[in-house]
């Protein structure tokens, strides 16, 4: 049993609001280069529309948080040019709003639009992000935050990617019901000790910290 397996992570909570992502990353020997989330403040009321996606907040949530994360990295002291970057999407319930919508249409004899075809898997929004941002690393989707961190660690340790964009998404339509809100958080991860493309980033990046605590 490795230290990785024994890491005392408690990421079974479906609410992302209390996750200390830099700490969780550090437990796995990773560090957070940038972070983003949705919502970030009370100003985040209307989720930006994501062209090509319809009927569920899942993909727009993922895109909003990931976009903020990557923008923070690009416009911070780092490079705008990303090396080979993996995209890992983690969600306990997946696109539950989309799944319910499809089930209701099937059971009620309703018509299904063709766009729901590719939205049925979380890879779709990962592909959107990868195409827009030039992320050429592996695309992997898993069922929760802990698994997401572990898979990102493996991809970095094995050299499948130099960086990993981890996107955590949970919809209000899933856990808890009324009173909950849709949430997504994204972190750009690098190995703790070795990141040759970004040596200039050694040391603290204070601007990351407030956003990284999600």
């Amino acid at each position, binding site marked *: 049993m490795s230290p990785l397996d024994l890491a005392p992570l408690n990421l079974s909570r479906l609410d992302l609001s209390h996750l200390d992502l830099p700490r969780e990353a550090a437990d796995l020997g990773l560090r957070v280069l940038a972070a983003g989330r949705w919502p970030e403040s009370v100003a985040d009321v209307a989720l930006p529309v994501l062209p090509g996606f319809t009927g569920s907040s899942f993909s727009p949530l993922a895109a909003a948080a990931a976009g903020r994360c990557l923008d923070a990295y690009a416009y911070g002291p780092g490079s705008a040019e990303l090396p080979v970057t993996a995209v890992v999407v983690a969600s306990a319930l997946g696109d539950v709003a989309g799944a319910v919508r499809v089930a209701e249409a099937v059971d009620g004899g309703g018509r299904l639009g063709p766009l729901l075809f590719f939205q049925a898997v979380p890879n779709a929004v990962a592909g959107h992000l990868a195409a827009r941002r030039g992320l050429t690393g592996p695309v992997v989707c*898993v069922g*929760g935050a802990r698994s997401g961190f572990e898979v990102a660690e493996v991809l970095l340790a094995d050299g499948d990617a130099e960086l990993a964009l981890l996107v955590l998404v949970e919809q209000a339509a899933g856990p808890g019901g009324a009173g909950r809100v849709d949430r997504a958080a994204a972190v750009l991860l690098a190995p703790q000790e070795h990141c040759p493309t970004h040596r200039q980033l050694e040391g603290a990046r204070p601007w990351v910290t407030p956003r990284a605590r999600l």
Partner: protein
Amino acid sequence: MTDTVLTARRGPRSVVVGGMGVLSAFGRGVGPLLGAAVAGRSGFGPVERFEVAGRRVDRAALHPGEPLLERELDRVVDEACGSAGLSAAQRAGCPLYLAVHGDPALARAAPVWRPGHAVGAFAAGVARRTGLAGGGRAYTSGCTASADAVADAASAVARGRVERVVVAAGYLVEPDQFAVFDAGGALARDGRVRPFSAGRSGLLLGDGVAALVVESADAARARGADPLAVLAGWGRAGDAHHVCRPRPDGAGLARAIGAALLRGGVGPERVGYVNAHGAGSVLGDAAEAAALHRALGPVAARVPVSSSKSVHGQALEAGALLELVVTVAALRAGRLPVNAGLLGPDPDCPLSLVRASGEPGAPAGPPVGLALSLSTAFGGANAALLVGLP
């Protein structure tokens, strides 16, 4: 996009397949599935499991009756662990990596009960019922999900983080995914899957539930077990091209293949068979042919290639594992799965497709060397697994 894959690394331990279990349209067990694959006997028929009136296509490859995903997952995990000869204590120390679309009950659960239907809880339930270590990790990356699970299991074993992992995956054709694939125009209008063929019109869904014991060669040896296969290499890469269309030049899949060969420590000339993703889609098959030529060079024109989806259909999250089982079984039997449904050559897919026995181009002998099993998915996800006989 660079073709460089020289950054791919792996741990030093040799990784083997210790046991397998499977359910397909052809029944339970490896034998019926392999028999259909090497004969090129497809399992597609009218869907009677649920209502398909109003759908454009009404065919899939179904196991008879109404199998339950949970029960069949438990059964294949038992079959795989049993064939590997694992004791109860060995199972209890073994994590489960499970590839599924999600908990099948989630979409129709009352909102208050939905948190109990998280996919991780579903995986934990399989682990608990089958006597594996608690927890369980769930993979949901569509048609590459079970290849991801195998790759991560192989990585963990190769690095010595664990002795073994049970990888399982399941998809049983159901009305929701059938409906969205039909609405998206992805299903084959002529009721056949014709990978790499002229006149191909799309995919058809198929039942697939499979499990694999991925373990270190040392652990198998210590148990006195004979491994079924060596998991020599694995690789993954992204297209960075489109939400759901493949990159036409195949560069992402080619990098995944290159990483698998690099981890296996072999060149393209050692590849003796490719079980392609080969969904039967116009764009996807052409992109995959381009990827094979890009990754394998001159070997791509002569290495035998088939897509066993032409026989058992597309099992979505379970597809890569189902096809890995077919590939391992074919290597062991010394016979190649046939690329069924071929109407004629497509100039965009210049590959040496495996024909049925007695047809021109049928394999002259058993497969020689290693076999690649390839998977691609929406989002530009690509995966390659490299296996060989022990």
